[in-house]
């Protein structure tokens, strides 16, 4: 084999080997996370003075509760299901604020972290393909006269496996 091609092969081999060494993901390879249930504040017949609606799901599944007793029909906490072949630790990073829109109006979803599960310290997956469930909640504050409508958004949640 010509010296040029030999060198080229050696360089390619090196690159592949080092690439594998640098980026090979050891943990989290077998984990998967799916959204099993979205966060729903239900249908809120708003108290004329405005209201604050909370889904307190830090301890598990919860329903929306109104501070000033607007009429809330339906609604539920969200749910992420994480499965993995082996036991893995997962840290969860919740966003500080999410804007829910009903164009051209919007409301702010806040306090997601303290109203959702495993905010502090994360959790360990169960391994063996068994599901770890993570309940999600938050708070929306509605001003008096908040425009009627269907407000929606996506909550980006980061799962760090280690």
């Amino acid at each position, binding site marked *: 084999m010509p010296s040029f091609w030999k060198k080229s092969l*050696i360089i390619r*081999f*090196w690159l592949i*080997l*080092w690439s*594998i*060494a*640098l980026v*090979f*993901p*050891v*943990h*989290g390879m077998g984990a998967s*996370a*799916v*959204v099993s249930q*979205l*966060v*729903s*504040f*239900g*249908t*809120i*017949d*708003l*108290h*004329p003075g405005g209201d604050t609606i909370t889904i307190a799901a830090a301890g598990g599944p919860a329903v929306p509760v*109104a501070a000033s*007793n*607007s*009429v809330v*029909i339906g609604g539920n906490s*969200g749910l*992420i299901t994480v499965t993995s072949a082996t036991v893995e630790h997962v840290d969860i990073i919740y966003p500080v604020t*999410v804007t*829910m829109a*009903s164009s051209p109006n919007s*409301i702010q*979803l806040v306090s997601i972290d303290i109203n959702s599960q495993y905010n502090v310290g994360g959790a360990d997956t169960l391994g063996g393909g068994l599901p770890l469930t993570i309940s*999600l909640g938050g708070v*929306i504050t*509605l001003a008096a*006269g*908040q*425009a*009627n*409508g*269907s*407000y*929606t*958004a*996506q*909550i*980006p*949640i*980061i*799962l*760090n*496996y*280690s």
Partner: protein
Amino acid sequence: MMKMKLNRSGVIAGILLIAFNILVLPTSIAGVVAVGVDAIITSTITETATTDLDFGSIDLDPAGDTVTIDASGGATTAATITASSIVTGETSGLITITSGVIASVAVVYPAADVTLTSGGNTLTIVAATIATFSSETGVATDGINPFYIYLGGTIVIPSGQATGTYSGSMNITINYS
């Protein structure tokens, strides 16, 4: 020969690096999950102070009097007195609620006496009597018809109370669930 040594060293180093990664380095992998969120907001609830609570014109007994409007059973235009004052034009108050949904209604009446003023003079509606002589506090709307809250209460007028038109306002909280 030199090239072969370097290649072997490289292979060994690569393998060691992989092993190091696997066994020692706290490697992690991150993923982002997007969870949907929704809220449907409606505003079918309305609250209107339809009629003021009015103790009417009181031609006061010289010894003073206690005037009560008892609306616990519904609207009334008659006051009760403990002495012999003459009262005319009195009426219970009325709050009208409408709601497009069926809801339980809890009424929270003032916890403190309500002060009525006429210049520098005052009278008070005794707080406890407002709840006693107004509509029941726990009821329900039917989602169709208006719902009414009737308001009453008691004022104690001492002998020699200055004449005048006394007025004020009170806050009533209405909670739904």
